């Protein structure tokens, strides 16, 4: 069974304990200055955004069928059976296709380094493998970020929306978007205000869009080869026939050659 996070923005008090816990777990620097940064970056894998008195957390969504993993030519990113989408920096050659492909703009690059790597939330894979919650979920004092089984968390989100419909916008983010994600989100204000547009995201996993084309290649290669060979044979055969006919004709004409 795959693990997931449920983030309930209505329970979030903007204390940023998740940010601090994440920084500690990933050995990243963390101070007031970094806490004030609104966006995720190569040194900040999760952020709590503030819009007037509303808070909303952003982090890697850990897609069920991640675009980043599908586009990586060297397989440096992959989805684990547990749920986390992890990164093997020793494989990465730095083409940055993952950054371009991610519909949530999650992977970040160490632009200032001479030998950079991609940085993003990897959902504490070691902790998850040991049955522990992620560092952010453990740090959360209000239960706004909750760790658990994906199926159960979706059910819980449905219950919360059902019991308190006036508190929430009627949508559970991450159930269907781009084929589903391992971070499930519910909110009291429109997701669009925090840069997530459920309406614009396709329900299909994004890798389908490229795989539809790529999967035709194995058929195309022999077919194309045979076709080009056939055309070559026809165009050259025509010439041979013409040459042979001409020769025969010249022989008939007297064989003077």
């Amino acid at each position, binding site marked *: 069974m795959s693990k997931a996070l449920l983030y309930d923005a209505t329970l979030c008090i903007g204390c940023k304990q998740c940010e601090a816990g994440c920084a500690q777990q990933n050995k990243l620097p963390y101070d007031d200055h970094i806490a004030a940064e609104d966006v995720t*970056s*190569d040194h900040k894998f999760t952020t709590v955004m503030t819009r007037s008195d509303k808070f909303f957390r952003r982090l890697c969504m850990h897609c069920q069928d991640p*675009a980043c993993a*599908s*586009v*990586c*030519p*060297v*397989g*440096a990113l992959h989805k684990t059976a547990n749920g986390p989408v992890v990164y093997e920096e020793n*494989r*990465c*050659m*730095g*083409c*940055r*296709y993952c*950054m*371009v*492909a991610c*519909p949530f*703009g999650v992977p*970040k*690059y160490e*632009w*200032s*380094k*001479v*030998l*950079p*790597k991609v940085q993003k939330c990897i959902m504490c894979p070691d902790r998850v493998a040991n049955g522990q919650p992620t560092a952010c979920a453990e740090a959360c004092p209000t239960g706004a970020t909750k760790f658990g089984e994906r199926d159960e968390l979706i059910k819980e989100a449905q219950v919360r929306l059902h019991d308190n419909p006036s508190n929430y916008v009627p949508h559970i983010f991450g159930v269907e978007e781009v084929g589903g994600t391992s971070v499930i989100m519910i909110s009291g204000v429109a997701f669009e205000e925090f840069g997530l*547009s459920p309406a*614009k*995201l*396709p329900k299909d996993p*994004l*890798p389908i*869009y*490229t*795989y539809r*084309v*790529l999967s035709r*290649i194995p058929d*195309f*290669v022999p077919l*194309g*080869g045979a076709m*080009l*060979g056939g*055309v*070559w044979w026809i*165009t*050259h055969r*025509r*010439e041979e026939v013409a*040459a042979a006919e001409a020769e025969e004709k010249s022989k008939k004409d007297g064989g003077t050659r």
Partner: protein
Amino acid sequence: MKFKFTFWKLVFAVIMVAGIYATAVRFAQGLGASTNLSDQFPWGIWVGFDVLCGVMLAAGGFTLTAAVHILNIKRWHSIVRPTILTAFLGYALVSLALMFDLGRPYRIWHPLIMRNPHSVMFEVAYCVMLYTSVLSLEFSPIVLERFKMEKALKIIKAVLIPLVIFGVILSTLHQSSLGTVYLIMPTKLHAFWYSPLLPVFFYISAIAVGLAMTIFESSMSSKYFGRQLELPILRELGRVLYIVLWVYTILRFEDLLHRGMLKQVLVNSYEMRLFWLEVILAMIAPIVLLSFRKLRNSPGGLYLIAVMVVLGFITNRLNVSITGMEGTAGGHYLPKWTEFAITAMIVAAGFALFGLAAKYLPIFPDEKEHDAAAEEPKAVPVTAAVMTNAGD
């Protein structure tokens, strides 16, 4: 003549010095110091121009080898060698440009052993790698002839046709796949350019640019290397280009119609202006000009049309890779001077290498042929032509 020569030498020297300095900045201080790339714009002109346009501009190689060797259009033979040279240099320079763009260029070989067949980039990497090898083999007779290595020449000649077929397949795959790369970004790329037909568009436009580049480079060769202009061939290429452009234009607009975007392209916006710049340069203007007999038959007219097509499709590639993304990225990307300097250095290196090759290698073999034919009129012309041409 002498002044002109030193002037271009000076321009070349300035570009090289700036490029070498920019190279030092790039490798000593990293991508952040040497580019305006950011998390919003992870890909800039090194991908959009150097790689996407570089591969597109080198498409004449497969277009012309297919026409001459597969379709057996013998009368185009004399322009195959310069086209193969352009293609070979193009791919070599694309690989060089990648070394600047990759965050860790020393791992460029990783796809050889770390494979992800679901990745378009992986497929492109393999195709480009294999096709560069194919091109170097297609190019090798020129070098082998120069050094009179008959045995090796014989081997290449024996495998030429399968080699050409392999090259055409590889080109078809990766030229179209560079469009497939963008299929995974339905939420990011502006709807003027995002289409399920992107791979088809990239492929057809590569053929158009391949033809246009052949006209362009033939005109340049006649101007700067004192080559006799192959006007009858260029006229025929122009006619094929006319058809290819029509096919492309009809498909592009039919696609916009199907996706309900046809009204949008008439509403003024940043993207709308870029779209029409591309459409006018790559489609409308060349098609109109090609329909005038006087223009499509004159060297100057053909040259102008070729330059327009090339610039138009460069605009297209930049729209797909950069400007079409600006709307969703929220901001603009303008390359840093170092990005321009390195791109200019690579382009200048291409021109210089072409010039050197034209000077020291038998790139234009037909001149001798013409002379020979003039000396011994009609002496076994068929076999002679086949013999001298077999190696290309």
